[in-house]
């Protein structure tokens, strides 16, 4: 690869800041079934927001509503408002694919594209976004891999299959792929649940580094993780509503407060291990 240390660092790091997400009265459905009810919360720019709660309470569903991935499931739809820096992503004339380019996503299981090399895994999103110039591609691939703290481990394996990496490396590859298209917000759905503690630690370090540039929303089952990395925490619970189980946001506050002086008794029961 014809890239040098100098050529990359000479480029001033784009002074990019994350966006704010204002979620207002959001309801998410699977067919006729209401899965998440009436969520209102504001995700602050350049913070890590953690979503926690027992299984099935709608954390993933809400997360996927934030970049309109929810509606990619057949029959699923969302109602309400999500303002990305003041612009409603659910407005009539907004194209979902454009929303997804501004709000990137990393999934629970690493999803490197099987038939593609490490390099191609990152370049594909760029190419499909219209970047064709080989030098530009090379530069962005290297920059993204560096940002994802993966460059040193894969710089000699760029043409190998993405599957030739370890699980933790694969997940960082997926993070690199997501940040390569320079989103404003990064959504992560249990990004560490398939990883060992060391790999988990590296991703957590990475998230703290990345929040300088991106707004990060992470779903996690690991309460220590939420406490370690996040600035704010939203707690979700399954509640009975009209005779049906529905996910609801029961408390949303700075992380320190959630774990020391929760205001809601359900939060307290959950974090002390009596629920969920």
């Amino acid at each position: 690869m014809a890239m040098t240390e100098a050529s990359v660092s000479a480029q001033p790091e784009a002074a990019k800041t994350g966006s704010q997400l204002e979620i207002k009265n959001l309801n998410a459905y699977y067919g006729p079934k209401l899965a998440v009810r009436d969520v209102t919360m504001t995700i602050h720019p350049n913070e890590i927001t953690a979503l926690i709660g027992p299984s099935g309470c709608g954390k993933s569903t809400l997360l996927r509503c934030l970049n309109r991935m929810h509606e990619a499931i057949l029959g699923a739809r969302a109602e309400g408002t999500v303002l990305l820096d003041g612009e409603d992503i659910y407005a009539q004339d907004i194209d979902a694919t454009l929303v997804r380019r501004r709000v990137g996503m990393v999934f629970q299981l690493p999803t490197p594209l099987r038939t593609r090399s490490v390099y191609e895994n990152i370049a594909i999103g760029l190419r499909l976004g219209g970047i064709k110039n080989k030098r530009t591609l090379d530069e962005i691939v290297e920059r993204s891999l560096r940002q994802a703290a993966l460059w040193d481990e894969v710089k000699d394996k760029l043409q190998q299959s993405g599957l030739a990496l370890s699980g933790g490396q694969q997940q960082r590859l997926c993070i690199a792929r997501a940040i390569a298209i320079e989103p404003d917000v990064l959504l992560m759905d249990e990004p560490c649940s398939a990883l060992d503690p060391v790999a988990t630690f590296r991703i957590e370090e990475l998230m703290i580094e990345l929040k300088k540039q991106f707004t990060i929303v992470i779903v996690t089952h690991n309460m220590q993780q939420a406490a370690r990395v996040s600035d704010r925490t939203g707690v979700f619970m399954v509640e009975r509503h009209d005779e049906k189980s529905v996910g609801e946001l029961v408390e949303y506050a700075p992380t320190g407060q959630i774990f020391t002086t929760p205001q809601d008794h359900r939060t307290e029961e959950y974090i002390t291990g009596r629920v969920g």
Partner: protein
Amino acid sequence: MKTLNMARYRRRKLVDRIMRSMTVVATLLALIPLFLILGYIVIQGASAISWHFLSTDYKVPELSLDGSASDVGGIRYAIIGTLLIAGTATLIALPIGLLAGIYLSEYGKGRFASFVRFATDVLSGSPSIIAGVVVYIVLVKTTKEKYAFYGSVALALLMIPIIVRTTEEILKLVPQTVREAAVALGVPQWKAILTVVLPAATGGILTGIMLAFARAAGETAPLIVTVFVSNSVEYNVFGSMGSLPMYIYRTLDELTSPEQYKVLWGAAFVLTALVLVVNILVRVATRRRV
């Protein structure tokens, strides 16, 4: 209690053994004719193969005075004809079958999709002469011509359901997470299918196309009613053309000595080998990509 259990255990074991041997016997019964046919084709056919046989065209057999076998020519024109007719059929069936398969796997959820699935299942089970008759009525009757191209259309009708269903099945094996990963990058769904989902399934889809090609290359009935046979090399699909199945079918009547029957086995051998070679080529080509 214990003895009762033992007896039951023994009986279960016995039943298990009987059932297993029955399946083995049935499998052998099914395979023996298959091996006999294949073996016979190879033994009889291979000895008929010669450069002369592969590189010359048809000659009307003559009765020689001393009773010995006369030269019946070769099958060059038939090999070229089969490749052209089946190849053209593939060109017709491929885009339709591929797109319909993509539709069923990626978009097809409603009643229309169920209907399409049902229709392809029925089509793939129907006798090949039906395809020939349809083309005969629609094309041959109206244009009063029998072109090689019409044969291709009939063969394409047989290939489409196979390609549709294998494409659908293979695409369904591509994990949902792969699609999501692409869509989450802000790629429109159709682009995600073309650039990510389809490449991940190339091997399987090509196998399906191969199966369809193999089926088409060996069909005789649709060609009988749609194509005029030519006994020399033809490259124009809008004209008459020879083919291996038609060669076998027609030469059967004209042969006089058992010696001459060898050419039939030779043609059968070439037809089988043709399908096999294409199959192997595709496999080699796709293995390198994974």
